[in-house]
């Protein structure tokens, strides 16, 4: 299969302004079907915003996002909801419904969208929970779960409807090494077994490059680097290398843009 032939998600000239802040400034993305694509970049570059744009929760200022051939910003609410049934999203917090048990959380999309009899819902839920290794936790409430378990339950829920793609929002943030390892394995296994297309937003370079097939590096609203993990590590862009290696100062400044330091110290602060 040749590259860039079968793209599930295609963004062209994607621009998004939040107030007067420019989050994205005309970026192009191609996410291949059946692959894991990581979107990386420093915190505050709007990676989560990108997932929301793909999911149609917010509309871009300009540009198009095609998901499976449909332009997301141009869809009606009804069409958008139909499309979302084929998308799974794993939120950073898990976003489990706190008033439902683990079982009911995973059953939630099935009960909402399929008219399946309760027996079949039960079987499906148990299968999905087994896949993430938490069948034994089905009676627990979300408040009784650790962060890593909550994310795995959320993952089981995200795959409940057998979607064509899953979006992961910072799946590794704040996890202990073991949970992180579990999640890394789960994401790559699920992708392989279920034939999913995965989009992963992350700044955990090591884990992401371990499983990603292709990586986009974003900074200040533009794509500064893209390629396979190996290609990026050998990138000739100083910036991309700084990011991949995690050095504190470099093309990405340590300081938030500010006025002259000495001037501000000497002034009396009378602007406040």
């Amino acid at each position, binding site marked *: 299969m040749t590259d860039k032939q079968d793209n599930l998600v295609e963004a062209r000239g994607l621009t998004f302004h939040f107030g007067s802040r420019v989050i994205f400034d005309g970026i192009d993305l191609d996410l291949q079907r059946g692959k894991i694509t990581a979107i990386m970049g420093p915190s505050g570059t709007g990676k989560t915003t990108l997932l929301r744009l793909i999911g149609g929760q917010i509309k871009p200022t300009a540009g198009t996002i095609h998901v499976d051939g449909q332009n997301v910003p141009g869809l009606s609410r009804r069409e958008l909801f139909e499309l979302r049934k084929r998308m799974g999203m794993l*939120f950073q*917090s898990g*976003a489990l*419904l706190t008033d439902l048990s683990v079982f009911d959380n995973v059953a939630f*999309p099935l009960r*909402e969208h399929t008219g399946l009899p309760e027996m079949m819902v039960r079987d499906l839920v148990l299968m999905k929970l087994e896949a993430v290794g938490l069948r034994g936790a089905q009676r627990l409430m979300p408040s009784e779960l650790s962060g890593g378990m909550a994310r795995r339950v*959320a993952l089981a829920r995200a795959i409940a409807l057998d979607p064509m793609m899953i979006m992961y929002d910072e799946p590794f943030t704040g996890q202990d090494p073991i949970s992180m390892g579990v999640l890394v394995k789960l994401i790559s296994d699920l992708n392989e077994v279920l034939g999913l297309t995965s989009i992963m937003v992350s700044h955990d370079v090591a884990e992401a490059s371990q499983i990603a097939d292709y990586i986009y590096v974003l900074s200040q609203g533009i794509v500064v680097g893209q390629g396979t993990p190996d290609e990026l590590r050998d990138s000739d862009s100083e910036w991309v290398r700084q990011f991949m290696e995690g050095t504190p100062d470099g093309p990405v400044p340590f300081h938030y843009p500010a006025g002259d330091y000495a001037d501000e110290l000497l002034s009396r602060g009378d602007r406040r």
Partner: protein
Amino acid sequence: MNSLQQLGHGALTAFQRLGRAHLFLFAILAGLPSLLLRLRLLIQQIFSVGVLSLVITVVAGLFVGMVLGLQGYNTLVDFGAEDSLGVMVALSLVRELGPVVAALLFAGRAGSALTAEIGLMKATEQLSGMEMMAVDPLKRVIAPRFLAGVLSLPLLAAIFSAVGVMGGYFVGVGLLGVDEGAFWSQMQSRVDFDEDIMNGVIKSIVFGVVVTWIAVFEGYDAVPTSAGVSRATTRTVVYASLAVLGLDFVLTALMFGEI
């Protein structure tokens, strides 16, 4: 100049919120018909909004009725008109205190809980998670809570009034020795079903709509942080209470007054 700007900005923000609140209400109303197919959701919410407010309503109603009995007796006995105690207690409760106090308690007990719950659901991305699962949170989360509030408050207000009348009866007839027959018969001859009781019910329905609307809107519109949710909860109680008292005046003037 600066404070003038601030004033203008504040006014614009207020109008914007008001407009948002109304659009939100229409969206909820549009989501109500689909609820008929999901009665279980509604029942679940009537439980957490209505049933859990029952105890506080009954206790408050009992005490308010007893106080009315005591105060009313002390005033009426000076005129030798203590037989009218039943009328006084019943009219005060059915026309005013039942709907108003029940609505205030409801705003404090159920309204604040609704705002906090919805606000936290927003803060923990549960609402946007639902959206991404192609489930409309307005239909799944907001509409059942709204309808449950609107249905529960009139029932709570009726229970409040009924328990209050019994509290007044207990103090007036049981403790202070007002004639039992006079207590009930005077009440029955002076309290009109259409004029008094139905108007009280209408009031409590209006209060139910307004209090629940404010509660769910503040929750849905809350800044999704812990400080934002706590501010939204406070706003719910303050705005809902003021709205109840203000509307009570308007409704009373329309129903009973000749202003």
